[in-house]
């Protein structure tokens, strides 16, 4: 009992306090930044439009969510890949390939007289299988032959691009069943404003004219599907052995190998997962626009990587989470729609996104420095 008095008592120094502050800021900055952006655009859009345009409307939120589904899905797979210490450059063209494959299969079955919903399901299934094969191929080459993922996925990206363009002949694959359109655009809820309006679950209200124009679709199916997949991904990364091994491989491949982590199998699975999430993005694109396009995902690759980085996933591997990627995607989407609604020349978007990406990495590095990771690295 008397010994206790002799024990050195640790007093948190002011240096520790500053350190904790930086760590805390680095953890929540993306949330704060996102909230700040929404507040900023709500006020500024309202002022510049003399109160006519409401940035915080359901419709704007729905448009934003629909816009980011592809980026979020690609970013989800990319999150696993980058945390495990790799990079996947093929997701853009794999999304395009899946869009084309799903459309072609739907079209062929629909024209052959198959039930339209079965045709749509088969289109999704076929596209996801093709995507999985591409991802598994990348993963196998990376794991078994030791070629850097940057190079393998760059090569696979070109292959996917070629295959997608050959299958589609460079055209948009159209003439799809109405079921595809419904899946890509209808929603969980419908809100009809005004008299005789209300909220309707699942069934589309039978309205016309002004009421139809004012009707809001809340949680459209692509958003719902993306949401479910993101939740599953977040669960897998945070709570399962698969997720733990993803972090471990990114932290130290050698240590993971020595500990008996099936590094090769994990690498193949992670790249397959990345391709499948990109493939799902392609399928949802096909449904949303009722047409398959080879170039559907090409402009989104860099956006998805930017979203992952803004969300705090370290490019050196071993660090990050799914929620960060979702926030990163939201930040990009809100920047883009906000700037457009402010009437800013759209080319400024790129500059702003670029600055935010670099800012995110700087914050990441500051945290590493403070956490004492830099000296160990």
């Amino acid at each position, binding site marked *: 009992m008397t010994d206790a008095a002799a024990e050195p008592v640790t007093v948190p120094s002011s240096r520790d306090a500053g350190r904790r502050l930086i760590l805390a800021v680095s953890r929540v900055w993306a949330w704060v930044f996102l909230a700040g952006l929404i507040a900023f655009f709500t006020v500024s859009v309202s002022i510049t439009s003399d109160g006519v345009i409401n940035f915080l409307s359901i419709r704007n939120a729905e448009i934003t969510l629909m816009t980011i589904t592809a980026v979020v899905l690609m970013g989800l797979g990319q999150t696993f890949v980058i945390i495990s210490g790799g990079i996947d450059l093929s997701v853009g063209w794999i999304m395009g390939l899946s869009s084309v494959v799903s459309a072609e299969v739907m079209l062929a079955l629909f024209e052959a007289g198959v039930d339209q919903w079965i045709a749509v399901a088969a289109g999704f299934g076929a596209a996801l299988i093709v995507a999985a094969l591409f991802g598994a191929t990348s993963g196998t080459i990376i794991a078994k032959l030791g070629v850097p993922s940057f190079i393998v996925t760059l090569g696979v990206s070109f292959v996917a691009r070629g295959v997608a363009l050959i299958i589609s002949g460079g055209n948009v694959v159209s003439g799809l069943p109405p079921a595809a359109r419904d899946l890509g655009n209808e929603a969980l809820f419908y809100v009809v404003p005004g008299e005789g309006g209300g909220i309707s679950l699942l069934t589309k209200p039978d309205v016309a004219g002004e009421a139809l124009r004012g009707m809001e679709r809340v949680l459209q199916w692509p958003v719902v599907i993306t949401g479910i997949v993101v939740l599953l991904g977040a669960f897998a990364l945070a*709570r*399962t*052995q698969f997720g*733990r*091994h993803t*972090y*471990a491989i*990114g*932290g*130290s491949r*050698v*240590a*993971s*190998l*020595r*500990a*008996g*982590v099936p590094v090769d199998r994990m690498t193949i699975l992670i790249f397959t997962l990345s391709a499948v999430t990109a493939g799902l993005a392609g399928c949802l694109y096909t449904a949303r626009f009722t047409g398959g396009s080879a170039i559907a995902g090409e402009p989104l690759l860099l956006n998805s990587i930017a979203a992952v980085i803004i969300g705090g996933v370290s490019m050196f591997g*071993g*660090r990050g989470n799914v929620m960060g990627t979702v926030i990163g995607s939201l930040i990009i989407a809100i920047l883009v729609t906000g700037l457009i609604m402010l009437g800013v020349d759209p080319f400024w978007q790129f500059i702003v996104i670029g600055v935010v990406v670099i800012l995110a990495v700087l914050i990441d590095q500051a945290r590493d420095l403070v*956490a*004492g*990771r830099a000296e*160990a*690295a």
Partner: protein
Amino acid sequence: MDTLTAAPDVPAPVEPPMLAVVDLVKRFGGLTAVNGVSLEVRAGEVVGLVGDNGAGKSTLIKCISGVHQGDEGEVLLDGQPVRFAKPIDARRAGIETIYQDLALAGNLDVSANIFLGREVRRRVVPGVHTLDEKRMLEESRKVLESLDIRIPRFRAEIDNLSGGQRQAVAIARAVYWKARLMIMDEPTNNLGVPEQRKVLSLIGTLKSQGVPVILISHTLPDVFAVTDRIVVMHRGRKVAEKATASTNSTEIVEYMVGARDDFRPEH
């Protein structure tokens, strides 16, 4: 728990040594890195393996831990010949190697590292398992306690721990997974003096728990402090095997530089 008086005149059956290396040869092209080395390690024994750089110490232990496979001779575990194709095979047989670095994932915490590759899982619904973090934390705390290892920042990432703490975690992991033989390659390198002492005292703890240790070190005072026997290698051959109590560092150095050789070939 029989007392020795039970049958004093009947010699106890001689158990085969835990590890026996017999006439092991390992060649790399024209170079013979390990040349006919034999070595025995018994339960609770700490054996020092010393020699100059390039003497073949590392190659020898890599042949034991499954990184390399010997070209001639054999490795016996409890008297049974074994052949490890990969390090993980040796590990499964209970041979754990503690490296200076690269043994832990720096971005994971203590418990995640102790259970890395062998995570405890819980079934949520059929086919879906989650990590049983609570159980792994409890078990990790227990094993650290049993080795008298204190890590105040238990949930911190390994990268934020000191070198000695990391070494201790690696040892704790080996102990938790019931290592039957521990190979330590320069475990005190890059450590501060108090941390070196801690690692050496951990070797003592292992010994008292019956886990034999092969210690590779250039630091002779460390070797003399904790070993029972010292094996000296020079140019791929074993040149001396001495009880630690009956030798001194001057003599060991003479063996290390090749000035003395107890096993000089006849021809």
